[in-house]
């Protein structure tokens, strides 16, 4: 630990408060009883798709295609997760299997 206990507690408190803020805000802006604007309803239907796409890229942000191993472990494990999930639709198999494969790839092979 490089932070003191109180610094760590403060950091966690800020993260928790900011997280709650992102969850509460829509309900504060559009309180119950009022009709939600159509544009907001539209965003609510299309955004989840775009945001998950964004999050996948976020997870790969530190991968460099120029520096060895050129993102190959990420590519292999990523394709594995897509394939096995399309095949079996088993969450444990997809996440557990994909993670184990990735750990073996980065620790033992690349």
């Amino acid at each position, binding site marked *: 630990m*490089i932070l003191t206990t109180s610094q760590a507690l403060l*950091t966690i408190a800020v993260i928790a408060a900011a997280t709650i803020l992102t969850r509460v805000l829509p*309900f504060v802006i559009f309180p119950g009883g009022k009709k939600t604007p159509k544009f907001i309803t539209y965003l609510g239907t299309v955004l989840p798709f775009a*945001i998950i796409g964004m*999050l996948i890229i976020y997870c790969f942000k530190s991968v460099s295609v120029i520096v060895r191993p050129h993102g190959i472990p990420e590519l292999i*494990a990523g394709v594995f997760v897509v394939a096995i*999930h399309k095949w079996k639709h088993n969450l444990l198999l997809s996440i557990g299997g994909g993670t184990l494969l*990735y750990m073996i790839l980065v620790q033992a092979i690349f």
Partner: protein
Amino acid sequence: MRRKAFKAALPYTLPVFMGYLFLGIAFGVLLSSKGYHAGWALLMSTTIYAGSMQFVAIDLLTSPFNLINALIVTLTVNARHLFYGLSMLDKFKISGKLKPYMIFSLTDETYSLLCSTEPPEGINKKWFMFFVAILDQSYWILGGLIGNIAGTVFTFDPTGIDFAMTALFIVIFVEQWEGTKHHIPALLGLGITVICLVVFGTENFIIFSMIGIFLCLTLLRSRLETDNLKVKEETA
């Protein structure tokens, strides 16, 4: 009534049980490898309760003390919650005194469960949704504790275990992809973020991606809304 709702909710949460247990273990192991014991895991999973953010929080807890940075990073990583809330405005209207917890516990996984499931006939919807939410959080807390304790008992190299989070998002992406015929929003999310990552670099790309996604979805509204209407007509 509550018992029945609990029993009805339990099987629906099993996929999240699997995912959260594993992801929670990954989080716990990683946290303990940085010198934070089980009490910290419990505290974080109870008060923050946001899967990806807790992995990022480990980074923050192992970097120099900077609350402003913690605030900005949290707001950007979690900004997607705004949109989850927007799609739950109507659904949570029935939740009454349970509503604060429903809002607090709206993670990626609970959100997708609540979006995709309706309680069986004769089951109280308010309590069904509540039990889905609270069961999910209990799995998450449990996984974090198991991983953290295992991490202190056994010593093994956790390098790469954070891929669990990546795998989870890929799985949600695949599920969403299969659930709709209209892939433009999903492709926009991937494409815009890649472009922003290349152009703006790893420090700032998320906020630019969000602005880009928001603008594109706004500009394409008439087109995408027609698509959605078509879906409704086809299924009707």
